[in-house]
């Protein structure tokens, strides 16, 4: 009894800790927001004429979009390759992607100098601009994600008609989603094709679009893995280990192809001197390649680590951190070198980014709480709270209905 009490006290303490952290982030973020929108980007950020793109583009947009790639990878696996085996992770993956893209758009609102005109690319076209293409893909793909996500809402409120209508169009929708994703994931890399003399040679490549696409394919499943691992703890679910092990293989393959292309760049573009110059850029390059590419490939092919939850979790963590490092290196480290400036984000840039990330976590929690995100949940715990009961019941009924059809 006493131990039980102690545990719940401990729980409360941890809960309040995170709640307090959450509200501190929110308070700082909102203060920064007010300053950003009343006094302009200069007052809120450390951006300058020499360094026009910082943390919000480098992290919030370039990383945000990539980290949400799990959505299209898993949707393609389930719907286009008809591998029902992966269904249990479909919904969390689509949910993350949907939230991710919403957050990217919010971040863009902060970063755009004239956000009230954000819709202009809809009517003012410039098909030569990569940014224009990214804009359209992101708008379309977020719509697609909203539709892919909507069954959860329909199911929750027992709306059968729209559910059926959606079921009828889901395959073309997913195909559209995959095309849009592959386009803008790679285009984020194409953004830098036009500045060959500004990007540090180790990160410039005519293959940038392909490199971006491959890393997105690698990091998407890694994010799904991390999320499954963490949410299995937080929500006391069983972890989908065999599925995650297979996803790990996808990551390993994508990273291997990526590594080959990176080596090809070194050989073709004669980058040896840069590779073996251990300045800041050289060290960060090695960190990225070793920790973010080679270590995870080894972990994911080595038998002991590629089928244990811990092993998969840590390899996914390496992939994600390596991915973030790669995007930051391209967008920040290499431009810093060119411009000859030192950029470190201001507290306002950081707290707005944290606020957006925190909003994402909160959104995920809410969705899991009120929507059937994990419908196939096994009951391993004591009686559940209300929303989960409803969810499970509806989930079962739906399963039934499809079988009958």
């Amino acid at each position, binding site marked *: 009894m006493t131990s039980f009490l102690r545990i719940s006290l401990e729980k409360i303490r941890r809960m309040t800790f995170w709640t307090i952290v959450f509200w501190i982030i929110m308070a700082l973020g909102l203060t920064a927001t007010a300053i950003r929108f009343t006094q302009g980007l200069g007052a809120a950020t450390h951006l300058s004429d020499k360094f026009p793109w910082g943390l919000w583009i480098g992290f919030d947009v370039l990383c945000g979009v990539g980290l949400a790639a799990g959505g299209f990878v898993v949707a393609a696996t389930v719907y286009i*390759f*008809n591998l029902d085996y992966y269904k249990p992770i479909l919904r969390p993956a689509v949910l993350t992607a949907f939230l991710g893209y919403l957050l990217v758009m919010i971040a863009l609102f902060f970063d755009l100098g004239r956000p009230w005109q954000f819709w202009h690319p809809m009517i003012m076209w410039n098909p030569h601009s990569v*940014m224009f293409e990214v804009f359209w893909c992101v708008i379309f793909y977020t719509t697609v994600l909203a539709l892919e996500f909507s069954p959860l809402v329909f199911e929750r409120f027992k709306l059968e008609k729209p559910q059926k209508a959606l079921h009828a169009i889901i395959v073309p929708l997913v195909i559209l989603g995959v095309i849009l994703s592959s386009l803008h994931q790679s285009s984020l890399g194409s953004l830098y094709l036009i500045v060959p003399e500004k990007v540090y040679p180790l990160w410039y490549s005519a293959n940038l679009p392909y490199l971006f696409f491959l890393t997105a394919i690698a990091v998407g499943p890694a994010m799904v893995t991390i999320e499954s691992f963490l949410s299995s703890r937080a929500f006391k679910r069983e972890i989908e280990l065999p599925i995650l092990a297979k996803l790990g293989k996808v990551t390993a393959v994508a990273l291997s192809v990526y590594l080959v292309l990176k080596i090809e760049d070194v050989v073709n573009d004669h980058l040896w001197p840069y590779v073996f110059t251990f300045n800041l850029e050289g060290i960060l390059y090695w960190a990225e390649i070793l920790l973010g590419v080679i270590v995870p490939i080894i972990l994911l092919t080595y038998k002991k680590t590629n089928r244990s939850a811990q092993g998969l979790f840590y390899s996914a963590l390496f992939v994600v951190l390596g991915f973030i490092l790669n995007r930051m290196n391209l967008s920040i480290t290499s431009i810093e070198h060119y411009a000859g400036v030192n950029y470190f984000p201001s507290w306002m840039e950081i707290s707005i980014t944290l606020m957006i990330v925190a909003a994402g976590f909160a959104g995920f929690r809410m969705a899991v709480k009120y929507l059937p995100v994990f419908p196939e949940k096994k009951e391993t715990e004591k009686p559940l709270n209300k929303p989960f009961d409803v969810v499970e019941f509806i989930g079962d009924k739906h399963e039934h209905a499809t079988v009958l059809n």
Partner: protein
Amino acid sequence: MQHYGILIDTTLCIGCYACEDACAEHWGFPKTDVHELSATKNTTVLTEGDTYVPRMCMHCAVPTCASVCPVGALKKTDDGPVTYDVSKCIGCRYCMQACPFDVPKYQWNSANPKVSKCDMCRDRIAAGKKPACVEACPADARVFGTLDELKKIAESRFAQNPGNYYPQIYGIKEAGGTSVLYLSSKPFVELGLKGNLPDHPLPSLTWAVMSKIPNYVFWGGTLLGGIYWITNRRKEVREFEAKLEQMEHNNPSRRIPNHEQEN
């Protein structure tokens, strides 16, 4: 249409900053002693060693800034200047990131910010006048005219004073050519002008990828559709066989003909 441009002869520039002041007056900017391009300075005179180097937008023939702008706020006009339209701009600052000459500058401390860059005094040109900086230059270091005229002037200056010049015009081939041309007494990199730009316009680097998109969408869609069709068919067959087996298992005496199954 005439293609206008400006020839900058760094061998003649005396560093009097008259052009800076005239430019500031034209735009309504304050006159300052800070000699670098900024949101309130569309032309400036830099000091590189013993040489004064006037700088401004190069008005590229195929401008990188106009190519990257998602809303077409930056445009190459028929008569030469590259112009900016704030009413379209969304403030993404891709133009600043992409310009090979780092020209566009930003009003960082405004909640309603603009990009700022030289427009070759387009309104003055339309009114039959020279750009403000050219008119103000007392040393003939800035010359206004059509590109053909400017090239001829450059050639004649080379011919008159061969010892004075490094025998090339900067801006003929850099990044596909620019409407602002430079003359110098030494290699241009020593003036802080980039020597590592390709001879072709930079937008062709992105266009090589962008132009493939329609094809990609078509073939990608077809391929994915095909994959779906095959895997779905396989799944149906698998399910059907499983059902069949199940039925045979339940009722071994009765073999079910195929067509009955399909209903």
